């Protein structure tokens, strides 16, 4: 397998959320691929126990999001091909895209949060295409709290 061109993440930092929305979206464009190494969800505003779910989806249509640029792991790294855009890479969907597949879903207690850290053999890989979206979504409305969510991926972009 080719060497990755870089490690990047997209973090939605401490945003009060109480509705079932996609919180992070990554567009993996044509001529690139992404291997998802981590995803997480936790919060920093409540101490009351409550259960919710989060899922990592593949979407065939874009969510309408607030544009955000992926952050590279090193300063001297090439820029991510998953560029920011309202129908590309970003956070906090105001319109939902069509979910075509689901790689991971788990329930968790919001007091503890959850970390998805697959073994290398089980990492989800998304080969780029015009509509290659990875989306981290609350499938049901979570208890209101200031959630921090993130996705991290290795990119193969030549």
């Amino acid at each position, binding site marked *: 397998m080719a060497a990755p061109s870089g490690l990047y993440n997209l973090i939605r930092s401490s945003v009060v959320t109480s*509705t*079932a*929305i996609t919180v992070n979206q990554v567009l993996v*464009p*044509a001529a690139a691929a992404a291997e998802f190494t981590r995803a997480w969800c936790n919060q920093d505003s409540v101490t009351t126990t409550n259960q919710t779910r989060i899922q990592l989806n593949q*979407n*065939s*249509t*874009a*969510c*309408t999001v607030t544009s955000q*640029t992926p952050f590279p792991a090193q300063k*001297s790294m*090439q*820029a*991510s*091909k998953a*560029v*920011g*855009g*309202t*129908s*590309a890479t970003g956070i906090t969907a105001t*319109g*939902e*895209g*069509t*979910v075509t597949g689901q790689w991971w879903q788990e329930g968790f207690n919001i007091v503890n949060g959850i970390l998805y850290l697959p073994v290398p053999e089980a990492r989800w890989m998304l080969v780029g295409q*015009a*509509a290659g979206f990875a989306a981290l979504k609350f*499938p*049901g*409305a979570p208890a209101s709290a200031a959630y921090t969510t993130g996705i991290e991926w290795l990119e193969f972009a030549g």
Partner: protein
Amino acid sequence: MTTVITAARVDCPDGRVAATVDLVEVGGGSQTVTVDGVPEERVHPGSTVYHVRFISPDRMMPDELREAATYGDAIALGEAYAARLAEHAERIASLATDLRV
């Protein structure tokens, strides 16, 4: 019958890829909302948009993604960017020539 152009590429005069154009569908997904304690599935409206990706001349700088409503607008954007890239390439080439001692 309708033919829809879903992808295209705009090249610079020297053959380098300046921009790519892709038709992307937006929305059409669903969201579960609770109304009076009862979960309700709401389907969001769908639309399409052309993504025009301006390929960065330097891979340390990110590409720029612009949106266009029609294929014609998308190609016009891509061609305008290709023309700017070609102008800059000429300026850089002449600067390099001037700097020779």
